[in-house]
């Protein structure tokens, strides 16, 4: 056993990289990704109301993808997960897959509530689908008074 092990469960001393260049490189990557995100955000802001729905949605999805990329860099390099051995990476990453169904099911049901509310349990036509400005039902009521 080498003398610089931090704990008895560790059987091999990890070698630490000596330079800080990788850290700074990651910093610049994160900054660049953030700037691109901001750019897309401003794009949505300036073109607000003029873009087709599909383009708005895909821009938002692109921003979400960039966020995931940022998360990857933070976890993999700043938190050194990428340097850990494969066993550990898998036990961290695999349980996070639960989030896929967690998110999908919740949002799916949220959208179902919107339909139930807009159609009053399916008993009247959904007006928001035909109106140009989508409005919150509560606001709709207030506005009429």
């Amino acid at each position, binding site marked *: 056993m080498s003398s610089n092990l931090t704990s008895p*469960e560790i059987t091999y001393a990890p070698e630490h*990289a000596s330079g800080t260049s990788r*850290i700074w490189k990651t910093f610049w990557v994160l900054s660049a990704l953030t700037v691109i995100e901001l750019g897309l955000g401003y794009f949505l802001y300036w073109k*607000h109301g003029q873009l087709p729905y599909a383009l708005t949605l895909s821009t938002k999805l692109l921003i979400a993808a960039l966020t995931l990329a940022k998360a990857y860099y933070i976890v993999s390099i700043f*938190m050194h997960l990428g340097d850990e051995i494969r*066993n*550990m990476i898998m036990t961290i990453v695999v349980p996070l897959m639960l989030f896929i169904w967690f998110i999908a099911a919740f949002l799916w049901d949220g959208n179902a509530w919107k339909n139930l509310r807009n159609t009053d349990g399916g008993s009247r036509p959904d007006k928001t689908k035909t109106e140009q400005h989508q409005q*919150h039902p509560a606001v709709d009521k207030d*506005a009429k008074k």
Partner: protein
Amino acid sequence: MSTTAIPTNTKWWNGGRSPFNASYGKVMMWYFLMSDAFTFGAFLISYGTIRFSVNHWADPNEVFNAFPFAGHANLPLAFVSLMTFILIFSSVTMVLAVHEGHKMNRKGVEKYMILTILGGLAFLGCQAWEWTHMITGDHAVLVNGEIEKWGTTVTKNPWGPHVMHEGQMVSTPGPIAFGGYFFGITGFHGFHVFSGVIINLVMLIKTRMGHFDQRGHYEMIEKAGLYWHFVDLVWVFVFLCFYLV
């Protein structure tokens, strides 16, 4: 740190050693962060669910367009970008502190820990300013046919759809849940930043007192660093959910 020193045919799972070549403390910290990710995940997914269940949501570019000392200038996304960079930068200083720790360089650790703590405090200051600005703001809202001045709180949301009123566009009340989720989630994140600052302060003091030199390793700094990066990671998603889309 490269792992080339480790033979590839090691039987990691056979007992008598960690299957991850990591100390119990680090493994525990990772799993704690994973469970905390589920807490934050639940908050953000609830927020998304409610957002999906209403027809209108507040437009972030309209809500977050202020900057300290900039008066009423319309600067969407500017202030939150500053906050984001502060947090990214404090992450970098944290990882540099960990790096110095590996080299057993006490002075270096101290320097970068101080910078990280300052970054955390700066972020908290920004958040305090933003909250105050939102709560005390007065936005014209058309309520029951009359114009009222509202700030954004957990019970009032002045960021509803716009309507024409006496010849000009005014806002109507928006979904109340917006304020609850915004203050709830950023508050919970702020609480994490705050506790991270406290942890880092303790680590700084322990470093100064030479505890880690005595112990022969700076693993505690590494664990505190994991927590700090996690706070940054959460912010990345908060930034996405509340400010960008």
